[in-house]
């Protein structure tokens, strides 16, 4: 009995869900290539316009459970607009859909949303969770990464443009290695640049470089392979047949990549920059000409000492430190590749680019005097430095971007005993786990890895990816453990459907938009989310998909939709991260962080543009389960806490939204209370209020009018409560409407997609 219990526990499945993967006994189902089964034909006149429904309904029929009817149209348009764009449908969009009685009305809504620029914004957030995006380094000093957002921008663009998943994979893991890589290709490797950097004095650069590669290897495992490979860093994986050598084989594929920032000019930046640089180069050479010889000798001596210390540490502490510091602080507060300074020093002078020479020279002038302080003085290098820096300010440097570059000198990977960076075991050849198909061809680099992931023979990637999509549209994956398809992961609730979707994904050219369209046009997706008591008793987790599920919005969507309903949301698509207001007690929390509140419309940008300071996460995000930016997140929690209630009730940002929503309602509608209430509710919930609700709101409105027009404390504060709404009505009237707006924005339904 105990054994059976344990077994069931391991499989994480109930007898009801006796899913039987159709594979040979000895190979775990997920390591076998998915076979595309034909969708079952449904008899009995069932409407099976979408194959997904055939799989789901067949299963329900076996168990004699009826699927739920379709949700009503207002619910549907709100659901799909939120799921595809993370925003509410505008009232006019709802009206149009309700009035559209021609066939294909649903598909027209879906296609409009898939073409919306906000689609890319919403889905970029998923990749930001997967890559654990941030605008700062992490660790104690948590320095800024002012150009991290270029990767986010790239994501939004790619997703909007419908870049297929295979290409997205190749660009994110190996965009720099693609033949004739463009800047846009290279920007994708920003994915790998979201690992943390430790710039704290005393940190061992190699230790943290190894940590970064380990992090990337784990990310690769969670995002593409659906495997918790991290365990195998220290020991052979207990449950999945992944040895330490295999973990380090994957590690080795990523090990030969260096962090580097590049100039990635936007279209308008390129010409003025190139012109100015030419002029700058001439003036720079002229400035340095008088001391060129001695300067060069001095810098060569400095570099030699550094290289010596780097190669044979432990002799001279001072120079050991200099070498370490070069590795730590290079490009700090600019988010530059930390080890680039050391890499430039290691490179022959003739092979360095002009820009590398320049940046190293500047570093030398400001940090190199230890080599010969007297000579530094004699050559007046302090003066030279300030002149050179001044010269540089005359160039309109284009904006840079964080990318990866193949290491110039091949870097041997070793098996690290117990995962310890200092304990080098045997050298490891780059390769992929034994249980999976081999790498094609002879090259063993990131490009080979990326192409292998999206090759036809790969059993995991398509499954893992469609499963994550499923989770986004239904709240739970077909495999509930979205990042663990291994032996310890749960079995799929619908194995054949999962495999069919995986095959479709490949057959449809890895098109993400097509898959999203396929899913949201299914009847399964369009079911009502209403809970049915009997069904609840049989299938409390909704694994059988006999209904949709009501899902609370993500942290970003909670804020974005409040701003949108209020008419405050700024829909601007581009640019650096912004710092919307949040309580001072939060911003003062971490070491040396400064949160300079953005001004103007930047206070109202969508949540994905909010600056992510790793040591001080944005408070509203934390309250609503935004993931910690230190670890890959493949699925968010949806908690329900009183801290969320306090935020929606009392956070000045949300109250400002209520004021703006009231102002908007008063300004837009000249009708009576009922018309205005109707309008307000429709804007927030995409549906008309029921008579019962309307009545309750009207009673409340009347009571609030009395409260604010009387002679008490409330009346005195009416103006403050009214805020921006007082432009459209007397303070007491405006304050009463703010109260109503705030009530609607605090409803469970407002932050839930049904």
């Amino acid at each position, binding site marked *: 009995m105990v054994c059976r219990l344990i077994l*069931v526990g391991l499989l994480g499945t109930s007898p009801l869900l006796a899913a039987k993967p159709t594979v040979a006994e000895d190979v775990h189902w997920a390591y076998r290539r998915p076979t595309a089964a034909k969708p079952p034909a449904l008899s009995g006149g069932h409407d099976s316009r979408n194959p997904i429904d055939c799989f789901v309904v067949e299963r329900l029929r076996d168990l004699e459970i009826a699927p739920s009817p379709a949700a009503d149209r207002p619910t549907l348009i709100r659901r799909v607009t939120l799921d595809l764009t993370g925003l509410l449908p505008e009232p006019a969009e709802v009206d149009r859909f309700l009035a559209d009685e021609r066939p294909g009305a649903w598909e027209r809504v879906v296609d409009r949303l898939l073409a919306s620029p906000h689609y890319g914004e919403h889905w970029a957030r998923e990749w930001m969770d997967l890559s654990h995006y941030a605008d700062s380094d992490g660790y*104690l000093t948590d320095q800024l990464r002012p150009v991290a957002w270029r990767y986010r921008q790239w994501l939004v663009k790619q997703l909007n443009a419908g870049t297929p998943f295979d290409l997205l994979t190749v660009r994110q893991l190996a965009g720099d290695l693609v033949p004739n890589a463009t800047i846009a290709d290279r920007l994708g490797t920003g994915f790998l640049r979201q690992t943390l950097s430790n710039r704290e004095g005393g940190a061992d650069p190699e230790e943290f470089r190894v940590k970064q590669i380990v992090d990337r290897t784990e990310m690769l495992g969670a995002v593409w392979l659906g495997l918790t490979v991290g365990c195998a860093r220290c020991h052979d994986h207990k449950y999945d047949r992944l040895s330490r050598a295999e973990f380090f084989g994957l590690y080795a594929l990523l090990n030969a990549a260096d962090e580097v920032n590049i100039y990635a000019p936007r279209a308008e930046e390129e010409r003025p920059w190139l012109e100015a640089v030419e002029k700058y180069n001439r003036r720079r050479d002229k400035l340095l000409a008088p001391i060129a010889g001695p300067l060069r000798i001095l810098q060569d001596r400095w570099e030699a000492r550094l290289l010596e210390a780097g190669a044979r540490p432990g002799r001279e502490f001072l120079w050991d430190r200099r070498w370490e510091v070069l590795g730590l602080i290079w490009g700090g507060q600019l988010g530059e590749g930390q080890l680039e300074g050391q890499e430039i020093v290691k490179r022959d002078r003739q092979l360095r680019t002009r820009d590398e020479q320049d940046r190293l020279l500047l570093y030398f002038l400001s940090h190199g005097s230890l080599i010969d302080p007297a000579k530094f003085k004699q050559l007046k290098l302090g003066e030279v430095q300030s002149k050179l820096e001044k010269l540089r300010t005359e160039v309109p440097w284009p904006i840079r971007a964080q990318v990866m570059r193949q290491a110039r000198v091949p870097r041997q990977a070793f098996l690290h005993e117990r995962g310890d960076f200092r304990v080098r075991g045997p050298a490891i050849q780059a390769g992929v786990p034994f249980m999976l198909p081999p790498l094609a061809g002879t090259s063993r680099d990131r490009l080979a890895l990326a192409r292998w992931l999206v090759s036809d023979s790969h059993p995991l990637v398509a499954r893992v990816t469609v499963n994550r999509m499923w989770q986004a549209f239904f709240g739970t994956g077909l495999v509930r453990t979205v990042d663990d398809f291994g032996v310890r992961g749960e079995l799929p609730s619908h194995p054949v459907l999962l495999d069919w979707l995986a095959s479709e994904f490949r057959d449809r050219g890895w098109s993400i938009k097509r898959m999203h369209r396929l899913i949201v046009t299914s009847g399964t997706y369009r079911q009502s989310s209403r809970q049915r008591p009997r069904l609840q008793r049989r299938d409390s987790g909704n694994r059988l998909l006999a209904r949709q599920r009501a899902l609370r919005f993500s942290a970003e969507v909670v804020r974005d939709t409040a701003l949108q309903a209020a008419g405050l949301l700024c829909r601007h698509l581009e640019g650096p991260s912004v710092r919307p207001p949040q309580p001072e007690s*939060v911003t003062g929390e971490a070491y040396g962080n400064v949160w300079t509140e953005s001004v103007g419309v930047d206070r109202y940008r969508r949540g994905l543009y909010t600056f992510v300071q790793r040591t001080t996460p944005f*408070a509203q995000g934390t309250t609503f389960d935004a993931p910690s930016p230190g670890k890959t997140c493949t699925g968010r929690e949806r908690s329900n806490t009183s801290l969320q209630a306090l935020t929606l009730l*009392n956070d000045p940002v949300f109250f400002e939204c209520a004021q703006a929503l009231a102002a908007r309602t008063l300004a837009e509608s000249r009708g009576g209370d009922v018309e205005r209430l109707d309008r307000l509710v429709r804007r927030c919930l995409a549906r008309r209020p029921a008579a019962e609700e309307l009545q309750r709101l009207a009673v409340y409105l009347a009571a609030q009018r009395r409260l604010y027009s009387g002679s008490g404390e409330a009346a005195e504060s009416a103006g403050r409560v009214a805020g921006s709404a007082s432009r459209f009505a007397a303070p007491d009237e405006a304050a009463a409407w703010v109260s109503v707006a705030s*009530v609607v924005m605090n409803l*469970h339904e407002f932050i839930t997609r*049904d």
Partner: protein
Amino acid sequence: MHHDFVDPVEGSLQRRLFLQRTACGLGTIALGDLLARDSQSAEKSIRPFRPLAPHGTPRARNVIFIFMAGAPSQLDLFDPKPGMKRLDGQPVPASFLDGLEDPLIKGSARVYASPRSFRRYGESGIEYSDYVSHLGGVADETCVVRSVYTDVANHHPAQLIMNCGTNRWGHPSFGAWVTWGLGNAADNMPGFVVLMSNSGHGIDGGASLWSSGFLPSIYRGTTFRSSGDSILHLANPEGVTGRAQADRLRVIADLNRIRQARTGDSEIAARMASYELAFRMQSAGPELLDFSRESASTHKLYGLDQDKTRWFGTNCLLARRMVERGVRFVQLYHSTWDDHSNLNANLKTNCDMTDLPAAGLIADLSQRGLLDDTLVIWGGEFGRTPMNEVRRSPAPGSEGRDHHRFAFSMLFCGGGIRRGTVVGRTDELGYHPVEDAIHVHDIQATLLHCLGFEHTRLTYRHSGRDFRLTDVGGEVVESMLA
């Protein structure tokens, strides 16, 4: 009976309407369907914070769990090994390594005798190191268990085992189990509160350590902020009076209730409960956080008068004040004790931050009579090796210790725990228990016992199986009990 007119599809709606009509007070009924999805027990689903019937006589009603994340070094704090001096710098005798397969234990390292000094405290004469002299001061209240062991030697998995009884994600934490089992005696505070402090680095495990897992989300730990305002947005928006806020909440509740009747969404009930609690926290919160009425000697006892101890001390005092107000489970996290190098110095930093306030908390609970029904736990996810780990430089003073899962120490006191006693003994290196090896599940079983629950019977059905905190293990450790 109202059941009689329930039809299978509309059933819950009818029942809810019935209950609604008979309900009084803000949202009592809103909780009606809270747990219906798991049909655990009808009673529980209507009043989620009503305690389950105990299986035995409860000795404790509250828990304060001081979780020292990163694994403090037991050999330098609680488990003196004078014999190690003799072996200092020597390879570990082979007899200790026999049959070890754990990849994290390095056979090649050398013994590192503790640089700390130990002495006996109190009538019980239990030894503590000089770094934890204040805890030594409450030795007679405390049960030191020196022979705890766990299953894994990686932080996050081991933290999960200590907090949730298994290293798999998605399982309820100890605090969630206790709040589910004992309910919440405070009607104006969450039943399970999490407070954090650190010496420069947060906790590896994060929110998974105070998760409600498959239990309903109201049992999840609520994190109060570690600095600044402990609870954000406690104050009404500018201009909104207390009465206006109450009106606002009433209409929100009414509208949510209407919606719930239409959709049958049990999460709406949880949302209503969150709002009710939020409203009550608004009145109770400022008073909870206001220490001005605590005496100067109390401030001193918790170290609020010193920079080093203020952060952790504030959390300790908050813990006491919450327990006084009926909060069931307060979990303090302090990180990180993960001293792979510079152990002697880093350990001092953490002890300087925490020793005085932790001892102050125990003394204060004791003198107020609160210790009788409050369990206090002090410990990390595993211990540290008897061997030296050389990570950064071989210079003297930079030694560290690696992860060690085979034996480590934890402290317990209060409600039902034997006072002034030592349980378990380790070998001369502190490598393995030689007496009373106690698994984490045994600890959990014992603590649940103190709280009145038989650990094999405090179960929850999920995915077709009854789950419990102690997974498939656990035995009550009689020698820890009073």
